[in-house]
């Protein structure tokens, strides 16, 4: 049933909205952006053919507001909606509301999403399909959690049944921490996903996180586009992702891919999705399916030379998935976040005063940042993703180290120097990967004193610079304009 699409509404913001708009244009679609009051000047708004305000800054009243988004789609005449990741992307009720409004949802069908997007139901499907799972139970009851923990042994992991991306996830080392952790996780899960159900499971000692990219169509075709290793995580948030998974034997890879395909077929999965696994020694355990496009999808795109958003659009229009090309080379992605790695990764906000974007062969930077962009406290702090491709891991890593060296962002504290030091480290070079990588090797990270010295020198030169002072003076005397905020942050230009 071919159904030509003409206009796509992107129900998201930030880098992913921009990335989807780019592919939609390539696919021949008109694009509609939606935005909250905090994002009126965001790059995704100007990138789309039209843009519609959907509410105030609070996500609950804008990017999570199903009614507003459907109205925006109807009003603009969009015949398809792409949810991106996060926000409403894994809410079956949203997919259902979209479909009820006679609009094509770019993602799995609501019932598939309900089954697979829910960790508990997904486990049942996995077990039925013969895929191994980590021992665990669904409960927010302290007594049941305590009983399970006593049986499975501490530490245990508490996470949102509806969630993904580490939100509402906590490791509990001893019984005393159980109750407050359950409470906080329930609250975070409710806030982030509108669903406070909690899953409690055994915490593996030193696993790797390996996931399989899946594409399925309405004609019953399901393909896998290799794996991504996303073991390098901080508080269950992925920081660095790569493909292929270093050191994974062909036999293990084939087994995990086979399990992912079994799952996807059992669930009649359509569109792009990811089956996540924990791998420890010769064992692997199904973790969850993310029934959406993932943050780290570019890693797969670089290796397979494909465009996963275009694939999603083709599938949504009733087309068939393309047979995947043979994967080539290696790709590594790192996430640049608005956070302060020198102060417990405290979230950061601010105005971008300067941005240097890296370039060169095999370098891709997916970001909505530009000079003057505001980073607000309303949404998650992903500023951009830097992805490098190489003929092999060594080349991809070398390119990423160089690219991070070219990167500069002034005005919003971020983790770029931290991820550079990780990528450049011996431990990363030697792929000593596990989900405890950060705890093991980077828990006491500090900037090098040479760089701190250089910064002090630069600050001293800037402070004494008469031209910088003059610029400051001039700007403070200027009449007020919408650009005032930017002008007063004028970059320092030194005399020669």
């Amino acid at each position: 049933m071919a159904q030509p699409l003409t206009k796509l509404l992107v129900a998201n913001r930030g880098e992913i909205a921009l990335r989807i708009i780019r592919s939609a244009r390539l696919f021949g679609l008109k694009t509609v952006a939606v935005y909250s009051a905090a994002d009126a000047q965001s790059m995704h708004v100007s990138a789309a053919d039209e843009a519609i305000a959907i509410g105030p800054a609070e996500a609950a009243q804008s990017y999570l507001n199903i009614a507003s988004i459907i109205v925006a789609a109807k009003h603009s005449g969009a015949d398809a909606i792409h949810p991106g990741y996060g926000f409403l992307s894994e809410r079956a009720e949203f997919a259902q509301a979209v479909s009820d409004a006679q609009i094509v949802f770019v993602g799995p069908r609501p019932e598939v999403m309900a089954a697979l997007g829910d960790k508990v139901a997904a486990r049942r499907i996995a077990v039925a399909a013969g895929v191994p799972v980590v021992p665990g139970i669904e409960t927010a009851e302290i007594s049941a959690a305590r009983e399970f923990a006593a049986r499975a042994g501490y530490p245990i992991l508490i996470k949102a049944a509806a969630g993904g991306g580490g939100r509402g996830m906590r490791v509990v080392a001893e019984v005393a921490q159980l109750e407050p952790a359950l409470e906080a996780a329930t609250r975070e899960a409710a806030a982030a996903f509108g669903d406070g159900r909690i899953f409690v499971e055994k915490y593996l000692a030193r696993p790797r996180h390996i996931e399989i990219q899946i594409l399925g169509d309405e004609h019953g075709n399901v393909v896998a586009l290799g794996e991504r290793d996303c073991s390098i995580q901080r508080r269950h948030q992925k920081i660095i992702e790569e493909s292929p998974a270093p050191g994974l034997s062909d036999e293990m890879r084939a087994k995990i891919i086979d399990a992912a395909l079994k799952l996807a077929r059992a669930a009649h999965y359509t569109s792009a999705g990811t089956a996540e696994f924990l791998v420890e020694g010769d064992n692997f355990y199904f973790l969850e399916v993310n029934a959406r496009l993932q943050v780290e999808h570019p890693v797969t795109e670089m290796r397979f030379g494909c465009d996963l958003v275009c694939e999603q659009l083709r599938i949504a229009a009733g087309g068939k998935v393309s047979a995947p090309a043979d994967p080539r080379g290696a790709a590594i992605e790192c996430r640049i976040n608005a956070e302060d790695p020198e102060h417990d990764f405290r979230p950061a906000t601010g105005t971008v005063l300067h941005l240097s974007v890296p370039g060169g062969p095999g370098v891709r930077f997916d970001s909505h940042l530009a000079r003057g962009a505001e980073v607000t406290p309303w949404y998650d702090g992903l500023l951009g993703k830097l992805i490098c491709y190489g003929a092999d891991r060594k080349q991809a890593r070398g390119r990423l180290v160089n690219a991070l060296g070219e990167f500069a962002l002034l005005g919003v504290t971020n983790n770029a120097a931290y991820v550079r030091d990780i990528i450049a480290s011996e431990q990363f070079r030697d792929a000593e990967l596990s989900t405890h990588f950060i705890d093991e090797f980077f828990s006491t990270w500090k900037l090098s004193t040479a760089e701190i010295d250089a910064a002090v020198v630069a600050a001293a030169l800037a402070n004494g610079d008469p031209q910088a002072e003059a610029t400051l003076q001039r700007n403070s005397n200027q009449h007020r304009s919408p650009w005032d905020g930017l002008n007063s942050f004028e970059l320092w230009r030194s005399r020669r």
Partner: protein
Amino acid sequence: MKLVRAGDSREIDVEVISRDGAAVRIRIGDREFAAEFTPNTDGGGILVIDGRRYPVFSARRKESILVSIGPASFEFKPAEAASRRRARGLATMEVTAPMPGKVLKVLVHDGDLVEAGQPLVVIEAMKMETTLAAESAAMVKQVRVDEGQTVDHGAVLIELSPPPASSGREAAPRAG
């Protein structure tokens, strides 16, 4: 001049001893060394110290000097400005928001006695929860926010006073 890095209380004593074209003599504390700075057309420049090249950008924001050295970014304040701020904090013993966000939970009431490490407020920013705890024993003088309220960076959340029967060390917020 004396500079203080944001989030750090240590003063850095730095002096530009001489500057002749690109060549700079600099002193940090008791270490004196040479550097070379060459501006480029995009408002930044290249700083060379000890044979290492650093791409540099810098900007002023209010009383701060922002600097990037490659991918690393820094915020400095002149020491006088920083110590003014600290003095204010000491006098009033305020627990302030370390970032803009929403107050999820207020865990204490006016008049409560709190111990070091006791959680006071839970705030949420960028979908992550941060618990602010008392750094030392104190008495809650006044809770200044309600649950659900949105607060700006630096907003006063709770005023503390020294506990009645103790030496009354400063109680400052700590991210946990």
